C-alpha cells in the first residue's frame, strides 16, 4: 500500500467528483490550447496574407539630400542623388540574426533612358521575387528575358508601345515582352528589365540603387530587423515602411491581448471548479482522514494524498485537454477563416505547457483543500461521526 495507491483508489471510488474535476480542468486546458493555437494559426495566416502587401523594408544608399516628391508627384528640377550600393553587399542581409524572417530581397537599379525621344525611368528588378515584392503586378504579355522589357501602363500609353514591339537602346534591340496592368502606383510610369540587363543598359554593372525587403515579423519587432540590417550594411540607410508594419503588428497584438484575457478567465473558472470539488471531497472524507491521522499518518502524508489525486487528474486533463483543444482549433479555424489550407501542426512545446498549466492549476487549487484536510483533528474527525 502506498500513498499513490490510496489516491488512485479514492479517485476510482469517487468517479463522479473525479470526473467533475477532470471535466473542469479539461475544459480550461482545451480552451487555453484552442485559443493559443488559434491565435498562433491566425498570426501565421495573417502574416501569410500580409505577404501580399509586398515589401516592408527599404534599403537605400546613405544620402544627405532630401526628397522633393510626395505621393508620386515630383517637383521640378529635382534630381536623384544617384549614389549606389554594391550588389554583393546585399548578401550580408542574409546573415542577420532574424534572416529566417526575410521572405524576399529585391535589388533595384534605377536610371534614366531615352525611348522615342522621351525620358523614362528604367528599373532593373529581380523578377523571381516580384511575386512576393510586387504581388499586385499583372503582366499582359510575359516576363522579359535578357533582351526584353516590361512597361508600366502609363509608360506604354505615352510611348505608344505594346507587347511585341521593339526598342533600340545603345544600338541594341530590346523586346517589349509585356505591359503592366495599371497599379495606381509609380510603377505605371516605369520600364522594367532584368537587373543584369538594366545594369548593362545603364552601365551600372554590380551596382544597385536600392533594395526592397519583405520581412515576416511574427516573432520580432520590425525595428529590430531594421537595426540588424543597418548593422550588416553600415553604408546604407534602412527604413521600415511603418504604416504596413505597425498596422499588422497592432492588429495581432490586440487580438492576442483579448485572447489572453479570455484565457485567464477560463483558467480561473477551471481552478475554482477544482477548488470547490476538492474541498467538498475532503469534507466527505472526514472519517477516512481521521482514521489515517489516528493510525499515524503525518499531516504531510494527508497533503500528499490530496496533491497526488489532483496531480493524477491534472496530468490526465493536461494531455486530454491539449488534444481536444488542438481538435477544436482545426474545427474553429475552418469555421472562422477562409483559408482552409492552413496547417495547425502538433506543437510539443504547447503540449508541454498545457500539461504544466493543468498541473499548476490542479495543484494550486488543491492547496487549500489539502491544508484543510491536514488541519483536521483526528479526534474531532472520528468523534464527529
Amino acid at each position, binding site marked *: *500500500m502506498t500513498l499513490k495507491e490510496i489516491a488512485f483508489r479514492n479517485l*476510482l471510488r469517487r468517479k463522479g467528483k473525479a470526473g467533475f474535476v477532470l471535466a473542469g480542468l479539461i475544459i480550461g486546458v482545451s480552451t487555453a490550447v484552442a485559443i493559443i493555437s488559434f491565435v498562433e494559426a491566425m498570426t501565421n495566416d495573417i502574416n501569410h496574407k500580409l505577404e501580399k502587401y509586398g515589401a516592408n523594408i527599404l534599403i537605400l544608399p546613405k544620402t544627405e539630400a532630401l526628397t522633393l516628391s510626395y505621393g508620386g508627384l515630383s517637383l521640378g528640377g529635382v534630381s536623384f542623388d544617384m549614389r549606389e550600393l554594391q550588389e554583393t553587399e546585399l548578401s550580408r542581409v542574409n546573415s542577420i540574426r532574424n534572416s529566417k524572417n526575410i521572405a524576399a530581397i529585391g535589388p533595384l537599379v534605377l536610371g534614366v533612358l531615352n525611348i522615342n525621344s522621351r525620358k523614362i525611368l528604367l528599373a532593373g528588378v529581380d523578377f523571381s521575387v516580384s511575386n512576393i515584392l510586387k504581388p499586385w503586378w499583372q503582366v499582359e504579355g510575359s516576363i522579359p528575358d535578357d533582351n526584353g522589357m516590361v512597361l508600366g501602363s502609363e509608360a506604354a500609353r505615352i510611348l505608344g508601345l505594346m507587347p511585341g514591339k521593339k526598342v533600340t537602346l545603345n544600338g541594341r534591340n530590346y523586346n517589349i515582352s509585356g505591359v503592366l496592368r495599371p497599379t495606381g502606383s509609380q510603377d505605371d510610369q516605369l520600364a522594367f528589365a532584368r537587373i543584369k540587363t538594366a545594369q548593362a543598359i545603364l552601365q551600372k554593372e554590380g551596382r544597385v540603387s536600392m533594395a526592397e525587403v519583405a520581412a515576416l515579423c511574427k516573432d520580432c519587432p520590425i525595428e529590430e530587423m531594421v537595426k540588424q540590417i543597418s548593422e550588416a550594411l553600415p553604408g546604407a540607410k534602412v527604413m521600415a515602411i511603418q504604416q504596413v508594419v505597425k498596422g499588422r503588428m497592432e492588429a495581432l497584438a490586440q487580438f492576442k491581448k483579448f485572447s489572453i484575457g479570455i484565457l485567464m478567465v477560463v483558467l480561473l473558472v477551471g481552478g475554482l471548479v477544482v477548488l470547490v470539488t476538492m474541498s467538498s471531497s475532503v469534507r466527505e472524507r472526514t472519517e477516512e482522514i481521521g*482514521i489515517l491521522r489516528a*493510525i499515524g499518518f503525518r499531516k504531510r502524508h494527508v497533503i500528499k494524498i490530496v496533491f497526488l489525486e489532483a496531480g493524477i487528474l491534472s496530468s490526465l486533463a493536461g494531455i486530454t485537454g491539449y488534444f481536444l483543444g488542438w481538435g477544436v482549433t482545426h474545427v474553429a479555424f475552418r469555421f472562422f477563416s477562409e483559408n482552409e489550407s492552413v496547417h495547425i501542426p502538433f506543437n510539443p512545446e504547447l503540449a508541454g505547457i498545457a500539461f504544466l498549466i493543468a498541473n499548476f492549476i490542479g495543484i494550486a487549487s488543491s492547496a487549500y483543500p489539502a491544508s484543510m484536510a491536514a488541519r483536521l483533528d483526528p*479526534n474531532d474527525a472520528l468523534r464527529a*461521526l
Partner: protein
Amino acid sequence: MSYIEAENLIKTYGRGEAEVSAIRGVSFGIESGEFVSMMGESGAGKSTLLSIMGAMNAPTTGSYKVDDIDIYNLNPEQQADFRREFLGFVFQSFHLVPYLTVAENVMLPLTTIKMRKKQKRSTAEKALMWVGLSGKEDRLPSQISGGEKERVAVARAIVNEPPVLLADEITGNLDTKTSTEIMELLQGLNQKGMTIIMVTHSPDCAKYARRMMRVSDGRLVQ
C-alpha cells in the same frame, strides 16, 4: 514508574459559563503487558480519557507519559509518529476505509513505513491469519460481516506490532458469540505481551481484563 503514567489529567471543553469538565484530575499508572478495562456510564469521560491516551486529545492540564515520553510535549507530527509506532486503535464502528480491500486496510499503518510492497502484504496476511481471516484479503469491507470487520480492525491495529492497543467499545455492535471471539483475540494479544486498554460497557467483556478502571463524572473511582 509505570509504563503508562497519567498525572492529574484535567480536560475541559468550552469557556466561561459554557465550560464543561470531561476529566477532573485523573491520575493512574499502567504497567507494560497489562490488560485494563475502563468502564463507566455514558458521558463519564471514558472516551475522552481514551483519546488522551491515544495522543489525539491534549488534556487541559496534567501530564501523560508512555515509556517516559511526555506525549503532549511532542509536536503534532511527532504525536502522529508516536501513534504509528506505539499505538494500535480499534474503534467501535470499525472505521475501515471502504474503497480499500481487507488486506489494504490492514496495510494502512505500514503505508508510511519504508518496507517492500511484498513484505507489507505478507505482514498484513499474517495479521489477518492471526485474526482468522485468511482467504478474505481481497474482499472489500462491504463484502464481509460486522464480526469480520472488527477482526480486520484488530488486524490493522496490530499489524505494525505496537506495544499498546486501545480499544473503544469494540463489541458494542457485535453479537455475543462474535464478541467472545473478539475478546479471546485481545486476550491472546495480551498474552503475547501487548498492553491493552479497553473501554467497554459490557461487564462480560471487562472480565477478560486483569484490571478494571471505573470512571464516573470525569473521575477515576476504582
